[in-house]
């Protein structure tokens, strides 16, 4: 690395730190960064719900991806001409393997999934998308203890029952409310209903 590039990086470092390494205050959260995330489709989201709880939200994979205790390091995305994905800075406790686990009407039919944006609410971020043209929202917030993720899905009326495949990885406890488990791992929710999925790390997070 030549001297000029070193100086440039040194000059930019405080700014990069402000974007990714600075924990900020509780009032600064949640915060959402659209960027390249590991093992995701292009242009996913890094979501920091609190200074110590973060996740990847990937519209192209179908929503919540990896969840971890920690934060996001965006600096690999901002360094140079050719960059690398953001880094998970912490300990993952939920790493889903399924793609598009949410369906409407028929649990086996993959529907056109279109991302519509997101908005900030007090202590939460709300992602919006459509399934076969029907609007669905997913509110993400930290649980009361600040260690786990709470997903609140709101389904449209007229779209038929909603089906969500829920994985239960070894490192996380996953609880589902608002529907019925119709087969192992497959939950059914009524037309126009709501679902709450709580994902908590099984082991206490490192301080």
């Amino acid at each position, binding site marked *: *690395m*030549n001297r*000029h*590039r070193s100086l*440039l990086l040194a000059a*930019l470092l405080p*700014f*990069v730190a*402000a*974007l990714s390494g600075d924990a900020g205050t509780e009032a600064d959260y949640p*915060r*959402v*960064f*659209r*960027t*390249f995330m590991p*093992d*995701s*489709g*292009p*242009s996913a989201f890094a979501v920091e719900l609190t200074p110590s709880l973060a996740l990847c939200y*990937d519209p*192209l*994979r179908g929503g919540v991806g990896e969840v971890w205790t920690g934060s996001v390091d*965006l600096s690999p995305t*901002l*360094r*140079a*001409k*050719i*960059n690398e*994905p953001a880094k998970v800075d912490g300990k993952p406790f939920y790493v889903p393997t399924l*793609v598009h686990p949410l369906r409407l009407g028929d649990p086996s039919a993959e529907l056109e999934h*279109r*991302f*519509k*944006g*997101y*908005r*900030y609410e007090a202590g939460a971020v709300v992602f919006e998308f459509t399934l076969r043209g029907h609007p669905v929202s997913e509110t993400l917030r930290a649980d009361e203890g600040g260690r786990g993720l709470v997903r609140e899905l709101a389904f449209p009326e007229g779209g038929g029952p909603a089906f969500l495949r829920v994985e239960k990885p070894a490192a996380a406890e996953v609880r589902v409310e608002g529907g019925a488990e119709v087969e192992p791992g497959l939950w059914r929710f009524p037309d126009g209903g709501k679902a709450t999925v709580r994902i908590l790390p099984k082991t206490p997070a490192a301080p």
Partner: protein
Amino acid sequence: MTRFFSILLALSAVSLRADHTYEIEEIPLPEGMVPEISGVAFTPQGSLVVVNRPGEVWLTSDPAKGAKGPWRRFAFGLHEPLGVLALSESEIFVTQRPELTRLLDTDADGIADRYETINDDWCVTDNWHEFTFGLRRDREGNFLLATGLPDVAGPISTRHPRVPLSEEKVHREAKPSPGLYEGWVLRVAPDGRMTPVASGFRTAAGLGLSPEGELFVTDQQGDYIATSTLVHVQPGRFYGHPASLKWREDYAGPLDLETLAARRSPEAVALPHGSLGGSPGEPVWDTTGGKFGPFEGQVFIGDFTKLISRVFLEKVAGEFQGAAFPFIRDAIGLEAIQANRGSDNLTIPAGRDGLKHFRDVPPRSGTPLRPGNMRMAFAPDGSLYVGQTTRGWGQGDGLQRLVWSGRTPVEIETMQLTARGFRLVFTTAMDRARLADAKTWRVSRFRYLYLPSGSPRVDESPVEIRDLRIDEGERRVELDLAGLEPGFIYEVELEALRSADGRPVENPLAFYTLNRLLDGRGFTGPLSAPLRPVEETREGVPDPESGRRLYATFCATCHQPDGSGGGLPGAPQLAAANFRRRGPDGPLAKPDEALLKIIAEGAEGKPMPPFGGVLKPGQIRDVLAYLRAAFGEDDAPLDR
């Protein structure tokens, strides 16, 4: 005593300023803002809005106060926004990599709380070179944006694309279009529906709308795009880079070069590589009503190099064409050009050719223009704000503005086509004796070819002036030229010319892109072959010293000055060849013919780009001669 010197210094500064017809001012940015400015706009009420590469949107209602002004961060977390359009301080649109987004402040706290996806019908991968450019809005409220092509010098992920990717090649393109509508200009209606408008773009980094509502984009030099361009975008047309053609509904399979050439629409104005930069950004029209000087209605184009160009457009036989001129260029210094090590990304040959194509006009004092001039916007006060970002390609980021001093610059104001040549109008009365002196004028012409590798200048020749008529007032000159022919770029140089009051022409250089004559006749010769053989340099004998300078300019950034190659800056997984490596697998073990081909056309599947579009064949042989001389097998083994 100290006060005396302070006053002296201030008077000197005033004196320096008085010499400039345009002053460059630094706009200090607020603490905490990353200065990689990638979008500049003004709200209808006059507030300045800037976006930066890390994805923030900042606002100030009083830009003149600089960093002390009432800046606030309106939004953050966007994915490399490269365009911004502000309807108000609470409703702002941006282009991000994957989508067009509306940012809304719904609770009136001054901060965006809704990030709405207006459209994402095109498809990106995570390749580093897949930019989404914009943003403009036409009279009907449609949004206009452009998508760039990825670069095989970096990985192209196939994970979870929004629609299936296509790896099919339309021709021999080095830059592919795997994602839907990559390499297109797109229109998004107010209701969010997207319509693909035109194809054939390589890196259409800047879009602009003329006062009459005509859409123009710039495209950047490289494969198939022999030199950077200003293109008048018309629905359904194809502008040269073949990769994007596969997304047309009528695409039926790969095409040959002849078919591509026949389908290609020419640019309105060519921006000759080196002389007028290398990577143009946003075109903006001077609609300031004279607040920015005597160029009302003309186009200003920032460039990645330390340059802002000016373009005069006219309609000839129903199509736009016109002339391009340098406007503001930083006085980087001829010595710096000679010693260019690539850090300024000038992408021009050092040495003799560098001097020819990169003059220091005008020599400037005061605040220098930075590189990375990709985004510009006129402020309500008539000053031109210039956003700069250089990440990975050079050094220098920030926000500057150009302010007209009120003093008329001595410039070629317009260059129009006539039946037998050109009509040049100057901004002020010129020295009649010099105008009438044939030695004042140097007129020449050249072409570029339509080739996968790009093209250097070909068919270069001086042009004889048959007649020269000067109107009363000494502002207007009619040049009659011998053999005025379409298909050429006509270059006019006027270094010895002076105004009637003795001032030199600030930018005594003009390039007119002559696509059509007044009667509508266009070029009918071969588009991909020269009319006469490319001249060999120095009687065909390769010159290692010329090669050394070229190596320093183009090759050393990746291959290192000592030839040791290694990981590319920012992408260590991609390695440039190590010329010091010996043995049968060493890069220089290949025969000359193979190495010349690699330099000209690039290395398939490797990060080595083609240089055939920048360097002439003789220059490529010079580079090889230097490689052999400096790192060749004749010496003792270096590294294994």
